[in-house]
């Protein structure tokens, strides 16, 4: 919480510089303090480094690595790693490194956008429920309970199955399926952020600074957006970082079941789906995309763990 870390901050500032003999100590800003605490969690730092390297290589890799993702060459099909094809080829002789780099863009984009949607819905509903209270709170929380009881994967499959063709027709095929998947994954993952935000809002709205803002005549919307939500940010940041990982997993599961992206959009899950029938002759095909999913999700989980430690003001680091 900001109020508590503010207190420790002012305490640090208030300490007479000369008395401690550390005259050169720079004043700690909120972000510097946060960064210092984050760096204590070494594995989170490692995770963040891996994540940055992977993100940069999927973004910049195709600029350096000039294989196209759909160059079909049956002469080199199902080959293991070689100089010409560092990660080998698939059954059509397509270069796997190029496909993994491209797939990484799609997988990570799905993770980020789906998480943003989930956080937006969750924050809006949670803040409304917490701030309004009464029957609004009751109705919204029952709705949340209902969505928590829904089995996510079967529902995800059902919605994609029913709306796939319409979305492809409405937009172009790639954008249509991307929007559908992102909307459904986001639409089934807002419950946890909603509960976190509601809990934070419930405790924050009783505090004095909110009372002061009411006395100054702050309208409700401004109150929630400017005064309450910024203070409820830390649990949301942690949930958001972990949400990216679980959204990437959800997309990969969907594609792995053959119901996500089409073969011309090779996400990591889709690559695994295509590879699973060639496990005996070409294990390299399944190993590299699987390792990528695992690495990204593991790194995200460690970063989320580090963020939780860094943002939890009750924990002394």
């Amino acid at each position: 919480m900001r109020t508590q870390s503010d207190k420790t901050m002012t305490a640090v500032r208030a300490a007479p510089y000369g008395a401690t003999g550390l005259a050169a100590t720079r004043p700690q800003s909120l972000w510097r303090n946060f960064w210092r605490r984050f760096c204590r969690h070494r594995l989170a730092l490692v995770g963040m480094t891996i994540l940055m390297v992977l993100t940069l290589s999927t973004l910049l890799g195709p600029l350096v690595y000039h294989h196209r993702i759909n160059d079909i060459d049956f002469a080199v099909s199902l080959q293991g790693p070689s100089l010409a094809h560092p990660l080998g080829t698939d059954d059509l002789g397509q270069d796997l490194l190029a496909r993994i780099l491209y797939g990484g863009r799609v997988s990570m984009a799905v993770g980020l956008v789906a998480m943003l949607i989930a956080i937006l819905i969750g924050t809006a509903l949670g803040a409304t429920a917490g701030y309004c209270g009464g029957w609004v709170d009751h109705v919204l929380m029952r709705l949340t309970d209902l969505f928590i009881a829904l089995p996510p994967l079967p529902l995800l499959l059902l919605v994609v199955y029913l709306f796939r063709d319409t979305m492809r027709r409405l937009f172009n095929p790639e954008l249509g399926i991307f929007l559908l998947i992102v909307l459904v994954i986001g639409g089934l993952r807002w419950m946890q952020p909603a509960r976190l935000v509601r809990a934070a809002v419930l405790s924050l709205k009783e505090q004095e600074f909110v009372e002061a803002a009411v006395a100054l005549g702050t309208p409700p919307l401004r109150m929630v957006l400017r005064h309450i939500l910024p203070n409820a940010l830390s649990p949301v940041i942690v949930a958001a970082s972990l949400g990216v990982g679980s959204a990437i997993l959800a997309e990969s599961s969907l594609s792995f079941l053959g119901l996500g992206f089409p073969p011309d959009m090779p996400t990591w899950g889709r690559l695994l789906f295509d590879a699973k029938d060639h496990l005996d002759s070409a294990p390299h095909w399944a190993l590299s995309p699987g390792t990528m999913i695992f690495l990204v999700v593991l790194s995200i989980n460690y970063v989320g763990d580090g963020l939780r430690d860094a943002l939890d003001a009750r924990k002394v680091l």
Partner: protein
Amino acid sequence: MSRFLLRRLLISVPVLLGISVVLFSILALAPGDPFGELALNPNIPPEVRFNLRKQFGLDDPLVVRYVRWLAAMLHGDWGYSFVSRLPVQQLILQRLPTTLFVLGSAYVLALLIALPVGILSAMKPYSFFDQVATTFAFVGYSLPTFFTGLLFILVFSIYLGWLPFIYSSTIEAGGFAWVLEHVRQGAMPITVLGLFEAASLTRFVRSAMLEVIQQDYITTARAKGLAEYRTILKHALRNALIPVVTVVALQIPAIFTGAVITEQIFRVPGIGSLLIAAIESTDTPVVMAVTFVYAALVILFNLLADLIYGLLDPRITYG
């Protein structure tokens, strides 16, 4: 006890109704007309098509259609599969035992791993064992079941050739050979699912135990000279399990996700692979029914969690 059960069952009715509303509205909002193909057939005059629509009540208001659908579902009339022409409930009943068997054994395996590991970790926090266990739990939690499943097939079926990677529901053997074959074919799906569950369960058990062990009554138990294993198992574990049950109950929907994927990888003939097959062949009645069964299972297991609560915590009375 029976009154409590009855009340809990009554509470789960609105949730089931809510889920049925969600499912029905998804289906109603979806594009596509069940008689769309008839419109393309020149031998069928349009009047026949309109009469059919009228007969099946497709033009009735949404609410009427929902009530009729719900009534049919409650009567056990779940329609016929478009593909196999069999009643949907028969298809599901055939496959449900396999799903429950794999899921149940995976869960038992997960508990057998998670409880001892979680307790030992919490007894000596930040020791070498604890660090190894927490790291493994963290890594296992980030390893998706579809990747571990493929790795298992690669190692145990292809390189080592120990285990079959296709699940067969008809084993032509009797007695001991039958049991052995079931164990062999069930080993991989159950282990994959069980290890994944064990990873998250270990984390919950460890943190719940850590919290309980610090409490005063544990110190009291130790001070009065109670053996350490009795303190942990009789005094700490029971209280630590209460929050664990809560988290497990919340995780149940996610467990079914893992189960669908595992069934698909190892071709286990359960309702998960039925769902995927039905989606691939656009068999809408089966898709709807399986999704509904999953939702009902979630509620059933939540009910079970509530009962376990009462066993663990005597303060909860089934009044």
